[in-house]
C-alpha cells in the first residue's frame, strides 16, 4: 500500500464522449492488501464507467460489509456511496432505486456478504429484477474477519491453515440462472479484458445484472489447494466467448446471427455482440445456460463470460407501474391531494 497519493496530474488525459477523463472515475486510495483481487475489479468498474460515458454523479454505489464492500470508496469519488450493513445491500439498493429510477446502481458485495447473511436479499433482488449491476467479489472466504471459509468455498478447497472445506459451494451464477436473473455473467479479477466489456454490458442491461467475479484474497485464500487462488483459477477458467457492446444497429453488418456471433438487442436499441466459443450454447436460453453451468461445475471448471441474458423482462419499476419522473423529485403539489379531497374522505367516514 502506498499512503501518499501522487499529486501529479496528466495535462492531456484522453477524454470520453462526455468530456471526462479516466481520473474523474477514480476514488480514494485503496486500503486493501497489495495484490487483492478486489482492487482489479474496482479499476475495471472505473474503466467501464469511463467507456460507457456515464456521469459519475449519476451513479450510486452501494455495498454491505467486508473488504469487498469497502471498495465503492475506491472508485467514482464523485458518486454517492453507501456502505450499509452486512448482507443487506440489496434492500438498500432496492429502496434507493425506487426513489430515483434515473441513476445507475452499482451494488458491490462479497461472497460472505451475499451467499451467507445476505442470501435472502440476494435472491429477492433477483426475483424483483431490480435494475442494477450486482458485483460479487468472490474470494471464497471472509477477508475482513480474517479468512474463514465462506459458503462459496468449494468442497475440498484447502484453507491457508490447511483444513479442507467439507461443504458444497453455493454457485452464485448458477443459482442466479435458476432464480431467473435476467443477466448472469461470471469473470475473474485477473482478466480485465473480459471484465470491462461484461461490466459495460451489465450497465446497459435493464434489470438485474449479476457479475460474479472470482477475486482471490491474497492474504487468506491464495494458497496451493485453494480453488479461489490466482493459480487455480487461471488453470481452470473456461471462457464461453467474448462480449462486446455495440452502441448502434448500423454497426451490425451481417444478420442477427452469423457463425458463432450473436447479437442481443438491449432495451435502448443498443446491442450486445456475443462471440461464442461453444456452438451449442445459447446465452438467451435459460435451460441451456443452466446446463452449461452444471456441466462445468461437475468438471471443476469455472465458466466465464456472459452466461445468460434475457432482455425485455419487466424490471421492478415496470412491474409497479411507477411514473417516469423520479419519485424523489416530486413536489407537494404532485404528492399531496389537499384539503378538499380530505373533506371528501371525511364525508365517507361518517
Amino acid at each position: 500500500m502506498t499512503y501518499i497519493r501522487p499529486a501529479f496530474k496528466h495535462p492531456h488525459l484522453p477524454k470520453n464522449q462526455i468530456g471526462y477523463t479516466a481520473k474523474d472515475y477514480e476514488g480514494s486510495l485503496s486500503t486493501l492488501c497489495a495484490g487483492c483481487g478486489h482492487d482489479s475489479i474496482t479499476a475495471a468498474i472505473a474503466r467501464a464507467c469511463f467507456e460507457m460515458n456515464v456521469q459519475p454523479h449519476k451513479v450510486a454505489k452501494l455495498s454491505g460489509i467486508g473488504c469487498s464492500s469497502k471498495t465503492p470508496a475506491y472508485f467514482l469519488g464523485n458518486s454517492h456511496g453507501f456502505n450499509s450493513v452486512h448482507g443487506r445491500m440489496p434492500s438498500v439498493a432496492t429502496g434507493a432505486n425506487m426513489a430515483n429510477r434515473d441513476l445507475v446502481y452499482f451494488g458491490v458485495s462479497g461472497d460472505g456478504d451475499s451467499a451467507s447473511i445476505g442470501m435472502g436479499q440476494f435472491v429477492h433482488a433477483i426475483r424483483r429484477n431490480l435494475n442494477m449491476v450486482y458485483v460479487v467479489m468472490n474470494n471464497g472466504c471472509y477477508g475482513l474477519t480474517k479468512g474463514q471459509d465462506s459458503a462459496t468455498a468449494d468442497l475440498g478447497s484447502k484453507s491457508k491453515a490447511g483444513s479442507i472445506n467439507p461443504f458444497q459451494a453455493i454457485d452464485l451464477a448458477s443459482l442466479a440462472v435458476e432464480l431467473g436473473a435476467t443477466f448472469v455473467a461470471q469473470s475473474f479479477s485477473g482478466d480485465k479484458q473480459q471484465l470491462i466489456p461484461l461490466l459495460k454490458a451489465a450497465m446497459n442491461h435493464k434489470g438485474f445484472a449479476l457479475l460474479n467475479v472470482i477475486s482471490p484474497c491474497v492474504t487468506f485464500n491464495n494458497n496451493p489447494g485453494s480453488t479461489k487462488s490466482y493459480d487455480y483459477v487461471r488453470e481452470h477458467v473456461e471462457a464461453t466467448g467474448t462480449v462486446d457492446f455495440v452502441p448502434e444497429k448500423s454497426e451490425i453488418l451481417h444478420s442477427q446471427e452469423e457463425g458463432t456471433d450473436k447479437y442481443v438487442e438491449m432495451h435502448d436499441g443498443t446491442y450486445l455482440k456475443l462471440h461464442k466459443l461453444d456452438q451449442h450454447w445459447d446465452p438467451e436460453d435459460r435451460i441451456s445456460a443452466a446446463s452449461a453451468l452444471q456441466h462445468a461445475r461437475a468438471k471443476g471448471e469455472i465458466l466465464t463470460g456472459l452466461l445468460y441474458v434475457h432482455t425485455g423482462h419487466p424490471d421492478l419499476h415496470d412491474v409497479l407501474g411507477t411514473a417516469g419522473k423520479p419519485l424523489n423529485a416530486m413536489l407537494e403539489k404532485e404528492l399531496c391531494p389537499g384539503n378538499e379531497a380530505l373533506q371528501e374522505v371525511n364525508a365517507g367516514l361518517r
Partner: protein
Amino acid sequence: MINDFVIRFANVNGTGSASANFLFAKSIFRMGIPVSPKNIFPSNIQGLPTWYEVRVSEKGYLGRREGIDIMVCVNPQSMMQDVKSVKPGGYFIYDSTKPLHPDFIRTDITYLGIPLMEMCNREYTDPRQRQLFKNIIYVGALSCLLQIEFEVLKQLLAEQFKGKEKLVAPNVKALQLGADYVKEHFSWPLPMRLERRDLVKDNILTTGNSACGLGAVYGGATVCAWYPITPSTSVAEAFEEWCEAFRKEEDGSNKYAIVQAEDELAAIGMVIGANWNGARAFTSTSGPGVSLMNEFLGLAYFAEVPAVLIDVQRTGPSTGMPTRTQQSDILEAAYAAHGDTKHVLLLPQDPKECFEMTADSFDLAEQLQTPVIMLTDLDLGMNDHMCEPFVWDDSRIYKRGKVYTAEQLESMTDKFGRYLDKDGDGIPWRTIPGTHPTKGAYFTRGSSKDEYAAYTESSEAYKRNMDRLNKKWNTAKTLVPKPFVKTWPHKPDTGLLYFGTSSHAAREARDILAEKGLHYDTMRLRSFPFTKEVEEFIDSHDRIFVIEQNRDAQMRSLMMMELNTHPAKLISVLNYDGMPITADAIVSQIESHK
C-alpha cells in the same frame, strides 16, 4: 340506561359476521351517539371464537368498559364463557333453533332466543347466504330491541352495496325478519336502548391504520416497503388504496412504489435506501418486525438517514399474541440497536392523530435526519374509532430539512462537510445522490468517519460525533409534538400521565375520580424525547400516576432515564393482559394507592 351500555357479539371467525357487526355499530354512530367498537379475534383464519364488543356512551367515553349488558351469542363453542360474562340484569340473545342446555341457564339474566338458523334455513337455500343472513337477522332483531332507526340501517346498506344494488333488498329483508321476530315474541324495547342525539357532530369513524396510510399520502411518502404482520398489515394496504385514489399520473402510472419485502430486515433496508436517495419512505410492522430491524435502525441513527417506521404494537414478547393489544415496545423502540442509540417516538391516541403524526413524521425524520418511530397499537390500528375529522392546511410545505440543492453546492466556497455541525443545532447538511457533478458526493457509513465523512478511526472524531448526535437529540426536543396538559385551577399535587390508546380510559377515570372528589391534573404524552412541558408537569406535581399497557412500566422507565425523575414520584398503573385498559382498572389501581 339510554345510550349507555356494552353489547358483545360472539361469532365464529370466517363467517362474515364482521360486516354485520360493523353495520350495527355504524348505525349507532349515524344516530349521533358516540360508539366504540372493538374486535376481539383469534390468531387463526376460520372456525374459532371471535367477539365484537360495542360500547355506547352518551358521555362520549371511548375506552373499554368492563361488564357486558347484552350478549349476542351465535357461537356454541364459546357459549359457556359468554353466558358467564353477562352482567347480572343483562340480556343473553342466542340462536334458539336448538334449545339451550340447562347448564347455560342463569337466573339473574334474561334470555332472548331467536331461531336464527331455522329462520335462515327457511328463507334461504344457498348455504353461504344462510350463514351471512343469520348475522343480518340479529342486527334486525337488535334494531327493534334497542331502537335503531330502521331508515339508518337501510341507508347504510344502500351505501355499502353501491354498485351492487340488487343485494340491498335481501339484506333489508333479513333485517326485517329479525325485527319482526322480536316484535312478535318479546316485549320491546329493552331498558338499555338508543335514542338519537347530536353528540357525534362532524366526527368520523375509522381505524388508525387507515388513517396512517392516508397520512403517509398527505405527508408525501412515495415509497413504502413492508412485510405482512398482524396488526400492521392494513397500514400498507390502506396506503395502497389511498394511493390508488390520489396518486395516479394521467397516463395511469403511479406516483408511489409499494414493495412487499421478503422480510422486515429488507423492508427497513428499502426505507433507508429510499430516504437516503431523497424520497420519503416508510414501513409499518409490529413487535417481531421491530426486533428484526434493530441493526438497521442503529445504522440509520448513526449514518443520519431519515426513516419512518409505524409500529402497530401487539402483545409481546417473541411472536406474542398477535391479535391482542399492548403498549409494550416502548423501550425497544426508544433504544433500538446496540450501542448508544436513541430514537424519536410519536404516540398518537386516535385516527386523527395517526393521520397527522404520520404526515408530520416525514417532516421530523427529514429535519432531524434520523428514524422516527410511531407507536400505535392493535386497538388503535385495527378498531374503528370515533374522532374529529381530518384537516389539511393547503399552504403547508414539506419540511425537507437541511438538503443542499445543486445551486447551493455550486456557489459553495467552503468544503462540504456531511457531518459538520454548521448551525450549532447538531443537525448537519446532507446531499441527495445525483445532485451535482463534482460537489456534495460523500460515502455513507455507520461510523469511523469525521465531519467530512472521511474514513477515520480517531477516538476524538468518534467522540465529537457522538456528542453532536446528543446535541441533535436536544434539538429534537424542540421539534416533536408537545404533550396536552389539563390542569385544575386549584393546583392539585397529583397528576395522571398517559398516552396513546390508554388516553380514552384515562380521561374517563379522571372524571370518575373527580366525581369522587379526587381532582388530578392530566398530561397526555405525544412524543419522545420529552419536551420541556413534560419536565414542567413533573416538576410541578408531587406524584404522578403513569398509566400504560405493559408489565414493565416502560414509559415510567423512560421518564426516569431521560428526565432523572425521582422514581418514588412516578406510580405505575398497568394493564397487560392483551385487552384494552379500562377506566375501572385505572380507578381501582389509583384508589388502592391512597
